């Protein structure tokens, strides 16, 4: 049980990764695939945030009462990595939405099976 208490964030991360992967691969609607991708990426952000935490330390904003000892603050580097990854995720979602709009205008549907049928018909 103690293994669960210390590591429950990792289990949640794995669970969200699985949900995201299922969404991306198992669902037939293109928009649901996109949402699955977002869940997948969010799971990875959670993993990074958890890795930055050290027990007994505080937010990495300089506090005059604690001083400049780096061991008293949590590691801010993973937070910066996540910010970059979030920007990438936003950009990818933007490109994906633009693609979905183009697909919808041409095929009139966002269901993969319908699109494949209409592709076969038009070729």
């Amino acid at each position, binding site marked *: 049980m103690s293994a669960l208490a210390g590591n429950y964030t990792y289990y949640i991360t794995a669970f969200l990764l699985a949900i995201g*992967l299922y969404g*991306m691969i198992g669902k037939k609607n*293109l928009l649901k*695939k*996109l949402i699955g*991708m977002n869940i*997948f*990426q969010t799971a*990875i952000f959670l*993993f*990074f945030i958890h*890795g930055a935490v050290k027990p007994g330390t505080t937010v990495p904003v300089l506090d005059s009462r604690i001083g400049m000892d780096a061991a008293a603050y949590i590691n801010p*580097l*993973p937070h910066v*990595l996540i910010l*970059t*990854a979030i920007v*990438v995720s936003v*950009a*990818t979602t933007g*490109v*994906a939405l*633009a*693609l*979905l709009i*183009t*697909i919808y205008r*041409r*095929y009139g549907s966002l269901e993969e099976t319908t*699109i494949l049928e209409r*592709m076969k018909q*038009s*070729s």
Partner: protein
Amino acid sequence: MSHLPVLIPITLLLSAFLIPLAGYVKRDFAFAIASVGAFLAFAFSLRGLLMVLSQGEIRYHLGGWAPPIGIEYVLDALSAFMAAVVTLIGLVVLIYSRRSVLHEVPQRVVPLYALAMLLLAGLVGIIVTGDLFNLFVFLEISSLSAYALMAIGDDRAPVASFRYLILGSIAGSFYVLGVGFLYFSTGSLNMADVAQRLPALYQSRAVAAAAIFIFIALGLKMALFPLHLWLPDVYTYAPSAVTALIAPIMTKVSAYALIRMLLTVFQPHYLRDMLPVTSVIAWLGAAGILYGSIMAIAQSDFRRMLAYSSVSQIGYIGLGIGLANPLGLIGALLHILNHAFMKACLFLVAGSIRFRTGRWEVSSFAGLGRKMPWTMAAFTVAALSMVGIPPAAGFFSKWYLLLGGIDRGNWFFVATILLSSLLAAVYFFRVLEQVYAGRSEESAFKNVSDPPASMLFPTIILGAGVLVLGLLNSIIVSRILELVVAPLNEPRG
């Protein structure tokens, strides 16, 4: 202090940002800025290659912060070699692309060139960076540009591009996960620093998981079998100039990243002897070779045939990386160079045929040998090289791969390479037969001739380049590639 490692991506990035501004003034400025930017980037990479060969590696600390705190860019033999290849192919295809793009997608000229420059900037960034997370940033820059570029085109292009987007994002996220494991285990993101700290941690499961995640991610980006599913559709439906730009270089840069992980970050000892990662890559490469060749035979659309052929060639590179001995790796690197030239030439030929006849099916190519002699001559050279007939370049890279397989004592790999050459002969000679010996009854071919000079010239340059590379391959191997594979030469304990 040389600024070269940072100048190569910066030139491309700046031209990517200037193109929209200038292109809305006058459309032709877009092409001009793109060509100048690509030419400067190639000039810088060539100079970088010469400097590295004479003086040793160049390390550049971004922002003046020394590693492991700061991000550093490294030009060593491997990265200078790859940068020169990528920028050269980019330059040649860009010159070709002007007429082709105006013909196929005239309303999207300015965004296409901006995205192409961004793609090249991202690829060159992957090559020169020495920081694990910086590699992810450039990987995503190039991938996003590729998703957008591939979606320009006919109606089926956005669907193929969306599938590529989903799979590519999985790859990017797995890479970040692997880097996260590495960072939390070693405390550093700099490649050289991680390489120093990893040997003490080889028993750790987190490092093993990191290795597996990173290799799945890069394998997916590289289109290693069975993670290649996005490739055929994307190469088939994109505009010809876009496919000609992406197909020769994008997957190869991911292969470069794989090699960088193998050689520099996780030492070969770990990946070859402790975790069977390289064996898995070798077997998947072999499977990809056979699968790609067999599927290519079944295709009637020329571009789709070339796409499956690419899957097969990436299998060769995977096999070379997976053999993880000096000869195998030399074979893989030489094949990266040769395949870039061969595939670019083949896709330029496909684009020229489309430009003149508007057709894609191999069955409609009858008699083109007489109507488009120079283009078909370049195609013949490239096709012979893909099959592996000397003195064309393809023979030599397959030769080194064969030697690597024999060195390992694995006769299945040797047999695979020989068999796949026969299979490649089947599907290429079928096209050659149509082109030279077919009868052309269709009146659509009355006005067909070689494409205009700006398209024909790059095609011929690439075709001639394939021959030149074949003749010069011993120089390339001895001067450049031997330096790269030196870390693999330590005696196996």
